[in-house]
């Protein structure tokens, strides 16, 4: 995607999301979809990045392969999707509120 197009998409999505009362939804969805893609479907991270590219415009994620967990950071919360101990239940989502000050320490919020 060209830089200008990407900026326009970003502004449009930002407008959409800011108009929505559930601002955590895009990051939560990203964490969940990436977790299932990597640990349930066992696709490569590269492939999963491709299929979640729309969600990643607003947020990025971090994969913990040892814990089988994917995290994505929002404004004042962190969404985590973790593979169940019994793989037949796949990934489930958890959203925790965090101190906004600590946001800068999280990889997804550095940019």
């Amino acid at each position, binding site marked *: 995607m060209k830089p200008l197009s990407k900026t326009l998409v970003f502004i449009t999505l930002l407008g*959409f999301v800011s*108009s*929505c009362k*559930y601002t955590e*939804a*895009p990051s939560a969805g990203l964490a969940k979809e990436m977790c299932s893609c990597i640990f*349930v479907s066992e*696709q490569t991270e590269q492939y999963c990045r491709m299929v979640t590219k729309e969600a990643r415009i607003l947020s990025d994620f971090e994969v913990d392969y040892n814990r089988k967990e994917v995290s994505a950071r929002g404004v004042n919360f962190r969404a985590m999707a973790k593979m169940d101990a019994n*793989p037949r239940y796949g990934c*489930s989502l958890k959203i925790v509120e965090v101190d906004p000050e600590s946001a800068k320490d999280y990889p997804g919020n550095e940019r």
Partner: protein
Amino acid sequence: MVSFKTFRILGLTFSFVLFLYSIPSFSISKPDRYGDYWPTKSWRKKSLEEAGFDRAKFQKLLDYVWEDEGNHKSDAYVVIKDGYVVYEGYDRGYNPKKKHMFWSFSKSLTSTVIGAAIQQGHLTLQTKVKDFYPEMDREKARDVTLRHVLNMSSGFKFYEENPINIALSDSIFVYYSKDAYKDVALKVAKTEMKFAPDEQFNYGTHEPMLAMGILKKAINNISIYENFPWDALFTPLNMSSVVYERDQSKTFLGGSGGWGVAKDYAKLGFLMLNNGVWEGKRILPEWWSNFATRTVAPALVKRESEEGQERLNVESYGAYWWLNKKLKMNKQRPYPNAPDDLYQAMGFRGQTMGVIPSKGLIIVRMGSDGRKPKKKLKRDKMYKLLLDSLVEEK
């Protein structure tokens, strides 16, 4: 000597039995065309020619399914005729063992799990939702039954896909918002009502979510509940690849969150073709296939609905299965090139399982299609090419 009265009673009884067996829901057990065969361990195979297909015409179907011109993206394609796999192909990193996301395929899976729960006596179609969710004991909601939930006709104010702003879709909030994700079925039960039950058909992820919440409360034992889909359905059919995701309260998501491989998913189609019997054991009630895959949801056929009332969807629908019946407000069937006994499981990004009982066909197509129409597989075209290639029954 047999009296006239006895003769008449015998005659009436015989006529009544004949009548019962003329109704689809009673004429069950097992259609003869499949013999005593169950693909529990694996599917048998046949060549295209043996199964009655014209190879050259079938190639046209494959050319379309696998076309590589930047349009739709097929990941898996399987065609089964009379229980025999006649074609299977994979692309884009998928193979027979790589699990694919079901998206809303999961709804038809959930339908079948609920059918098994009814067969085992955990639920009935008349089960009132408010008996398990007191939040539903309110105007318009208190008469909602499991049947309404299965027919996507409960009446909730829920927009599966917001036509103006996709980011405002209720289907996203109910999965991913912090006040819903822990217990999605409870969130649905608290949703504002817009219509009385059966007043309006409204396709959405919310209804199967609620169905799986109702089942959890009806079983009332988390250990039995969390094993139920496997004990009742996935294990008997040996659908070993299936992943069925849950929320934090351990309620199965129901409307999405299923994963698996194409040939495992096709076993659901074969179970329905066999009217809910597998390996001689009844998994689903005798009437279930008729209810779920042949009977249009009452809200879609109500007279007042046909006279211009607000509609959110005009495709015909059963109980978490898409049907191909022509509704009065439509000029033709949703898929005019396929027969009207076609029923489908369908999901986002082009997931499709089509079952055509009159042809003994099951087709599973898994894909990663885009959102724009030109980026999607045209299902009607696929069915046309498929049926054109079937010379045996033309």
